[in-house]
């Protein structure tokens, strides 16, 4: 059941069953509390997680679900204890809107790993209700989980940074990949992958895109600035590149074998997986043991690091490559996303297309 009894009326698009088809939904959001800001949403990125969630691919969706966790908007209200923002500020909200704030993990600015983390949508909020995401007109968020957007970034094109950006930035820092001159492989060239290429180049790395699709080569090299491109279904190309990469960011959302990717790593190489296939990956052990290689996971990032990432993008003028759509295109957009037919993120022009009935 949609939450309707709260103080602030809200309107968005929601999925109501595993078909994943979205349609308009009226609901409500809490009154703006002392630590909260209310945000009029301008744009919201369409993340592949939104698609997994509306179809309940991961098994924990509760319907109705209003997805969207790459939100850019303008502050319309601020609570009395809010210091960091004022009305009219351009802000962002990403994947999380709450955590316990007191545990060791939160104290280390790793709210995303807090056992009590609250996600922007499809999560149990502190009052027991479900959270609703950015495919809607407004959102009310604790200031701790709201981000400043650097002035030079475009409101629409920076929205995907709030999930895709931090998802690749965090492991690139944590696993020591920001070392100029080293060689990074980016597996998968979609929403996550294309941002990883941009960050890789900004870190001074040599970047090779690894993809099943030869068609993406020209864009990868000429538009995104990758140094080389490898078709992963071509055994000869894989063989020639064996043992050449220091790191790989694996953004592939489908189930796949890690064996060919592990072979591309040098000794002591690191593969970090940030895609979330719904079934386990195949992990051969011999390459790990014989080459002391590792496979690590990473999941978005904490609030401090997300702001650091946005500031880094401001400094290096990094926006995502997007296709702007109206909200009523969303079902078609999901179909195209499932076939990877987007360069490289859809962004919903919420302010101009989401009209209350």
């Amino acid at each position, binding site marked *: 059941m949609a939450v309707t009894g709260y103080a602030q009326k809200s309107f968005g698009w929601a999925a109501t069953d595993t078909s994943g088809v979205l349609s308009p939904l009226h609901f409500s959001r809490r009154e703006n509390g002392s630590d909260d800001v209310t945000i009029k949403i301008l744009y919201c990125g369409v993340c592949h997680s939104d698609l997994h969630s509306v179809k309940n691919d*991961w098994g924990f969706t509760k319907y109705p679900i209003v997805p969207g966790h790459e939100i850019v908007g303008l502050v319309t209200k601020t609570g009395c204890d809010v210091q960091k923002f004022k009305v009219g500020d351009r802000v962002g909200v990403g994947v999380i809107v709450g955590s316990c704030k007191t545990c060791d*993990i939160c104290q280390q600015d*790793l709210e995303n*790993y807090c056992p009590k983390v609250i996600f922007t949508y499809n999560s149990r909020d502190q009052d027991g209700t479900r959270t609703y995401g950015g495919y809607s007109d407004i959102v009310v968020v604790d200031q701790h989980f709201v981000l400043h957007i650097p002035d030079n970034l475009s409101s629409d094109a920076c929205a995907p940074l709030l999930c895709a950006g931090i998802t690749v930035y965090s*492991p690139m820092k*944590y696993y020591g990949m920001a070392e100029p001159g080293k060689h990074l492989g980016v597996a998968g060239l979609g929403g996550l992958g294309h941002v990883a290429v941009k960050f890789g180049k900004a870190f001074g790395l040599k970047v090779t895109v690894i993809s099943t699709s030869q068609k993406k080569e020209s864009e990868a090299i000429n538009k995104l600035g990758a140094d080389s491109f490898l078709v992963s279904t071509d055994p000869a190309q894989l063989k020639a590149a064996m*043992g050449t990469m220091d790191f790989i960011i694996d953004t592939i959302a489908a189930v796949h*074998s*890690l*064996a060919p990717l592990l072979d591309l790593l040098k*000794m*002591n190489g690191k593969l970090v*997986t*940030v*895609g*979330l*296939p719904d079934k*386990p*990956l*195949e*992990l*051969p*052990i*011999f*390459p*790990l*043991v*014989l*080459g*002391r*290689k*590792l*496979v*690590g*996971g*990473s*999941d978005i990032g904490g609030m401090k690091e997300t702001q650091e990432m946005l500031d880094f993008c401001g400094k290096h003028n990094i926006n995502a490559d997007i296709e702007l759509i109206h909200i009523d295109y969303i079902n078609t957009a999901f179909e195209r996303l499932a076939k990877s037919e987007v360069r490289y993120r859809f962004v919903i022009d919420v302010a101009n297309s989401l009209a209350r009935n």
Partner: protein
Amino acid sequence: MAKSPEAEHPLKAIGWATKDTSGVFSPFKFSRRATGEHDVQFKVLYCGVCHSDLHMAKNEWGLTQYPLVPGHEIVGEVTEVGSKVEKFKVGDKVGVGCMVGSCRQCDQCTNDLENYCSKMILTYSAVYIDGTITYGGYSNLMVADEHFVVLWPKNFPLDIGAPLLCAGITTYSPLRYFGLDKPGMSIGVVGLGGLGHVAVKFAKAFGTKVTVISTSINKKKEATEKLGADSFLVSRDPEEMKAATGTLDGIIDTVSAHHPILPLISLLKPHGKMVLVGAPEKPLELPAFPLLSGRKLVAGSGIGGMKETQEMIDFAAKHNILPDVEIIPIDYINTAMDRLGKSDVKYRFVIDIAKSLKLE
């Protein structure tokens, strides 16, 4: 035409070898090279029986060159040194582990990681720089480049200590490299065999709290009372495993049989690390969610470089860390291999070469 094993080198040697995938051992005459200017020749006193020896005897990994003389936990006494050898003299007690050569020039070698050199030469069943096949420690005599020989600490038992040359370094290296050696950390050891029991001993010596994870409740008493583990988990008991969710900083997984790793990943705290040192042949299933949602990692590790191997032996001698062994004569080896195949040993066989293998 290639020379026969007996004729290819000037020094007569005897060992026990397998000739085919049956893996059955019998006496074998062969020869060793003359002591080169950088070589150390030593009389083998003891040799540990590693599970890898069994895998190789039966050619389970497809790498075996028959006739195979395995053995890479070799200790002995120096009988001759080459003219340019500086680290060793006749009479020294020494050891040789899993490798006897590497390129010595690549990034890995210059960082004391010879074990990760792409041209690393294994102690047995590998092609040496002179083109001949290497033979291991189930034999009376070894000749090895001094770089790949470790000096055995004084007063440190050779017979019991031999398995450290593979089992020891294999577990010591990842505990150090992955930072799982800090006092107070909680470390899990999966599997209680040759590798596992040594991992427990090293982890305790580092001041960590150790949990042994095993499929068999039978091993609990030994683990906690004899080896000093702080706790024991039966991996097939869902309740026990659930209660231990998110409690371990690291896990050393020594199991070489195919097994599910999801339950083990769940035992890790966020940012926890699981290191596999057993090598299951077939790929394992890696669920992405648990890895991502806790920023955990799964890694592998294989033995260690020579510098670290010497460091490990010296550490073991200083802290009196010794494997638990069953000493056997060479002619027991076939029975020992059968028992090893059923994990029927506490926890390593060691062949008393000096007493049981005679050159006729």
